[in-house]
């Protein structure tokens, strides 16, 4: 195969993409069936749509999105808890902006904010330290949602707060881990995947080694790729190669930034503050050891331990199929609400709320509403 030069011209990039697509098609055709590859990272989901990759792939290769958007996989009961804390007069919620619109079982943080809750949008968990300093009489709660990529910054925030003697900053944690949820998907009889496009950013932190056990145990290929269209195509080519050769290994197509061992400093910070625990995922229920909770010595930063709240979550029945969309069982188009009752301005399911949500990406970039150009 042609080697990637330092910097390709646009024409070269287009030609190279065409060549790769052709090779992927030819190789995939030798299996005599349709190959299904899943990305488990919201940034990949968006990158694939932005590049129009699905449009140029041969029919023998299907891309399906998995539970890669942290906002989408956060279950109702977490949102209900966050809203309940937000409604207290002695609390300020600090959160990334896209959590505001995520529906809980009864309302959303946005609704709480309109009704007077003090909810501040931050760009980094570290920003919540300043909010805590400026509001010593309030409990400042950061909504620590995300994958292995955001856990180190949340942990670093806790360590910084400890060092600075801040006593009014807390985390409401819903940190999630990728390899255990991959295992849950592979154990799910309804889910069929021939390989995983492994997340680029998560792997920068964790390294590639963390995927070895699950890839080996279930004999499913996995390739870590970056987010440029050509990187994703090269990753897909290697996935098809593995399928054709009957292999199942973790390959790294993002060697510039992803190392086998990951980023030990970040991992050490996470591990100092957090330990793994069972946690709930939207549409998947409790997945063993797929989350992070704060260790006993940091319990004073864990709002659920400091100020436990009983919150009743009664998930109402709607026709929303986010739970199945997140497992790649149905495409958004198969949901009766998609692009009709559920649109980004009036999202019913979380997959339509976040910009990295599968439904939002389908909607924004046109798939499912019409087949532009294909």
């Amino acid at each position: 195969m042609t080697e990637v030069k330092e910097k390709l011209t646009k024409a070269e990039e287009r030609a190279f993409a065409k060549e790769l697509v052709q090779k992927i098609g030819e190789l995939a055709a030798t299996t005599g069936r349709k190959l299904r590859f899943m990305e488990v990272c919201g940034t990949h989901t968006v990158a694939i749509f932005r590049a129009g990759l699905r449009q140029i792939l041969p029919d023998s290769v299907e891309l399906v999105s998995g539970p890669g958007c942290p906002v989408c996989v956060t279950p109702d009961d977490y949102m209900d808890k966050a809203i309940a804390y937000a409604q207290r007069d002695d609390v300020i919620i600090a959160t990334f902006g896209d959590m505001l619109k995520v529906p809980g079982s009864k309302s959303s943080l946005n609704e709480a904010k309109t009704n007077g809750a003090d909810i501040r949008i931050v760009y980094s968990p570290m920003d919540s330290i300043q909010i805590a300093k400026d509001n010593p009489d309030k409990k400042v709660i950061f909504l620590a949602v995300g994958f292995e990529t955001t856990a180190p910054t949340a942990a670093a925030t806790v360590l910084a707060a400890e060092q600075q003697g801040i006593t009014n900053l807390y985390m409401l944690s819903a940190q999630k881990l990728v390899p255990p949820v991959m295992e849950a998907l592979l154990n799910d009889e309804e889910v069929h995947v021939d390989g995983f496009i492994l997340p680029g950013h998560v792997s920068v932190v964790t390294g590639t080694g963390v995927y070895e056990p699950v890839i080996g145990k279930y004999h499913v290929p996995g390739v870590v790729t970056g987010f440029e269209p050509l990187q994703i195509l090269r990753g897909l080519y290697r996935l098809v190669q593995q399928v054709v050769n009957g292999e199942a290994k973790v390959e790294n197509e993002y060697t510039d930034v992803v190392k086998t061992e990951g980023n030990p400093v970040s991992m050490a910070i996470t591990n100092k503050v957090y330990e793994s625990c069972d946690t709930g995922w939207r549409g998947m229920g409790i997945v063993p050891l797929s989350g992070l909770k704060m260790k006993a010595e940091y319990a004073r930063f864990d709002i659920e331990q400091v100020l436990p709240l009983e919150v009743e979550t009664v998930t109402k029945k709607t026709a929303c199929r986010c739970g199945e969309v997140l497992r790649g069982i149905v495409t958004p188009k198969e949901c009766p609400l998609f692009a009709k009752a559920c649109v980004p301005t009036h999202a019913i399911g979380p997959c339509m709320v976040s910009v990295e949500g599968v439904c939002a990406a389908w909607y924004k970039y046109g798939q499912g509403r019409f087949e532009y150009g294909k």
Partner: protein
Amino acid sequence: MANDKVTLAHGAGGKVSQELMEQVILPAYGNPVLNTLHDGALVNMKGEVAFTTDSYVVQPLFFAGGNIGKLAVCGTVNDLSMTGAIPRYLSVGMIIEEGFPIKDLQTIVSTMKKMADEAGVVIATGDTKVVEKGKADGIFINTAGIGDKIPGTHISPENVKPGMKVILSGYIGDHAAAIMAGRHNINLPESVRTDCAPLNKMTKAMLEAAPDIAVMRDPTRGGVAAVLNEIAAASHCGILIDEDEIPIHPEVQGVCDMLGFDPLYLANEGKCVAFVPAESAEKVLKAMRTSPYGQEARVIGEVTAEAPGTVGLRTGIGGIRVVDMPLGNIVPRIC
């Protein structure tokens, strides 16, 4: 007065108001029409008149390459220009927060004068109000403007037909990137600054070269994506643009990647998108390149009969995706 702050008295209409007028406003804007200081300005117009208004609430007030005053003049000048008019007169209404530094006000009004001179428009009338501290955010400015419509031109989205070329005047997203950088304290290279500029001379040259230009728009809030979607909807045509032809500074792309924005949705304050019959495209491009603000003008796509009402983008690797209408506030208070 230079070290002082604006007080409520400055907006009360009495002697102190007069001082502000005489020491700050008139020295900057002074011209025979304004100097009469009547309740309103009397001006002569030629025939069909274009009329527009816009309010400016940008935050921060000062940013790389400009300030709120520059926006307030160029924004209204450009709105008039896009209707196919030659801008002639502006009104300037200012709502100032008590305590606003007079020095900053002087900077803003002198910028406005400079931009009005460059555009060849006269600030004919104005008003200044002061509100209590906390009731405004420094300063808000409204400008309205009138201009003479260039005879023989007919700018309307309904004129857009399949086969027409879509022309963009230059690099996109610079203004929004400069504002975001200012707001989030992101250090950007000197080269990233607002593109805010008066486009009236360029659009006049374009219309003189090709009076059959179907429509021109300045892609401000909502960016190029919003303009294209509006025109696709209004004309019942499809629009297909080519990702590789859209000029974006790498630094702007970098800011977008960092903050999760798509440059197609970012506001510009000195750009023009024109829909032009294919046979006129070269003439229009040549006319645009006579202006300092049209040096990078190029065809970015064309109007199609397929997919009416939809904007598609051919991606770098040859796929096609939809460019949707922006949903809401991509970046609030951008102008």
